[in-house]
């Protein structure tokens, strides 16, 4: 696949704040790439550097092989969907969408055709003459999308575009955005702090924290095989247990229980074992536990009913562990105070640096 956007050793410093540190990134053509991280992690700054609103302090930034350097935003083949939509309040929907084409001096007939097509694409052709301030949040969002996509940019940059929408609308828009991206085939770089958005829509995710790009991978890789404690903790729910490395196939948890887990760390090294609650199973003391599983004995101290699932807090020598069990026939219910065995597949055990 052709490379669309490439960052090499890009840093951005504001005064004495390092917003982005030495970032390397390669995004392919037609890819839906998300930058995920908590607020202040540098994801928006990265996006703004690609858009041209900020210039890198250091490093190279190329789009389709062309160095963007200090090019202003109007000279870059990218368009942005802003967090606040940034629709021009003194223009109609149609004028908003036509703005970019008019700036590029596209002929009036072609502008009309393309604006109409773009508004059809987001199902807002009937609102073409409305003032952009009369639209609902969801409609403004679509106009912002149409206004950017009508220019057929090489890369579309989206800065938390769903943040201002309510839950139901956001979920509907997630599906719509992903469909749209597949249809138009344009590279999307999507900035969000919402892991669910990133997991459901992206081809690949880059997780950022404190200006650094910590891990890049498919949603599954990021979720199942986090390479750092931060990524493990930031995405989804996870149990983090202190442990010491025994050899490259096993570690010893706090309290002395040995568990199987593959690790590259040296024996004696302090590490953290990460296990997702839904990968854990609870067995009564009288139930047979299948062989080959890691086990840890503990007492149920809390049980929370969520309808489709039960959450258990199990007090073990390695610490309190959260277990998520589905509420369906065949899965036994466990009572508070009951001593149980927590069991999980060694393959679902990730070892990360402490």
């Amino acid at each position, binding site marked *: 696949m052709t490379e669309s956007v490439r960052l090499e050793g890009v840093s951005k410093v504001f005064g004495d704040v390092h917003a982005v540190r030495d970032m390397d990134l390669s995004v392919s053509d037609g890819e839906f790439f998300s930058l995920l991280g908590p607020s202040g992690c540098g994801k928006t700054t990265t996006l703004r550097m690609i858009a041209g609103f900020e210039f890198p302090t250091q490093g190279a930034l190329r789009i389709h092989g062309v160095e963007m350097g200090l090019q202003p935003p109007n000279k870059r083949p990218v368009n*942005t969907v802003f967090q606040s939509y*940034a629709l021009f309040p003194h223009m109609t929907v149609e004028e908003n969408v036509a703005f970019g084409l008019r*700036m590029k001096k596209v002929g009036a007939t072609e502008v009309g055709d393309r604006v109409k097509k773009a508004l059809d694409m987001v199902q807002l052709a009937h609102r073409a003459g409305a003032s952009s301030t009369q639209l609902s949040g969801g409609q403004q969002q679509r106009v912002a999308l149409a206004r950017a996509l009508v220019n057929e940019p090489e890369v579309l940059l989206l800065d938390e575009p769903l943040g201002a929408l309510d839950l139901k609308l956001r979920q509907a828009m997630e599906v719509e955005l992903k469909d749209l991206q597949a249809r138009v085939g344009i590279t999307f770089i999507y900035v969000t702090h919402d892991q669910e958005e990133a997991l459901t829509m992206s081809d690949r995710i880059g997780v950022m924290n404190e200006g650094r790009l910590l891990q890049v991978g498919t949603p599954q890789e990021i979720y199942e095989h986090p390479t750092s404690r931060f990524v493990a903790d930031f995405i989804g729910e996870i149990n983090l247990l202190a442990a010491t490395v025994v050899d490259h196939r096993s570690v010893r948890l706090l309290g002395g229980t040995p568990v199987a887990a593959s690790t590259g760390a040296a024996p004696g090294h302090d590490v953290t074992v990460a296990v997702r609650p839904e990968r854990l199973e609870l067995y009564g003391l009288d139930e047979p536990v299948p062989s080959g599983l890691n086990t840890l004995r503990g007492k149920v101290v809390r049980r929370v009913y969520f309808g489709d699932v039960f959450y258990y807090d199990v007090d073990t020598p390695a610490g309190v562990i959260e277990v998520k069990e589905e509420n369906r026939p065949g899965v036994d219910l466990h009572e508070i105070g009951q001593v149980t065995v927590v069991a999980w597949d060694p393959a679902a055990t990730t070892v990360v640096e402490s």
Partner: protein
Amino acid sequence: MTIDTVEAARPELEEAARRADSRRGFFIALPAWVYLTVFFTIPLFIVLVYSFATRSSTGRTRLADWSLDSYRRLWDPLVAQIAVRSFMLALATTLICLLVAYPFAYYMATRRPALRNVLLVLVMIPFWSNFLVRTYAWKVLLGSDGPLSQLSQAMGGEPIRLLFTNTAVLIGLVYGFLPFMVLPLYAALERMDWSLVEAARDLYADGWTAFRRVTWPLSRPGVFAGSILVFVPTLGAYVTPAILGGAKTTLLGDYIVSQFLAARNQPFGSALSVGMMTVMLVFTVAYFRSGARNL
């Protein structure tokens, strides 16, 4: 102990509560009502009545023989000349204020908040001393032995003769009314959503086009408000032209004053005042009409 009996809601009780609320509102506004009535409405009404009265041969105003004679005199070529001169001066003052104030307001609005407040205070500092005193200071500055003139002479030039010219009045008016232009422009630009400018840049507009297509139209309410605040008072300005302007450059303000004090023709002075106020009212209403569309 007695327990208050609370009545259930009924339409007439709701109506009574609404009336009590509006009565409270009236009492809160009462001091302003009284003040405005006594010092604005009644004098204005007197001026309006006088404008239809006649002047006796001794210069007394006779509240009899009601006529439109004073208004007919408004079409006198001399009056037209003074009105046009005042209008041009007010227009020039407004345009210069706009040209000077807009970049400064833009600069202010784009600084970090702490610096903005400092700049805002600096803009308002002139108000801390009296307008009359500051205008007399200009008289000294612009005089033929003032610092400007001395500097020109020290450099081998001619003495500068600015005082008692229209230019001196213009300088004084721009100086006096600049803050009234800066403040509404600043308020408009400070409210500006700068991501709109970024959006325009992102959509291939260069810096100047983004300003012309986004920043300027969105700051227009501030431009209108500032222009009205400068234009209306300069049209009737009296103090600045009286101190910095010469006898040759009569403006509407001095002309009206001279009708009341020197010519002792109160009906004509009143008619001039009413005429000028009508023109200003038309401008102001036009502003609010167009402003409502722009906001």
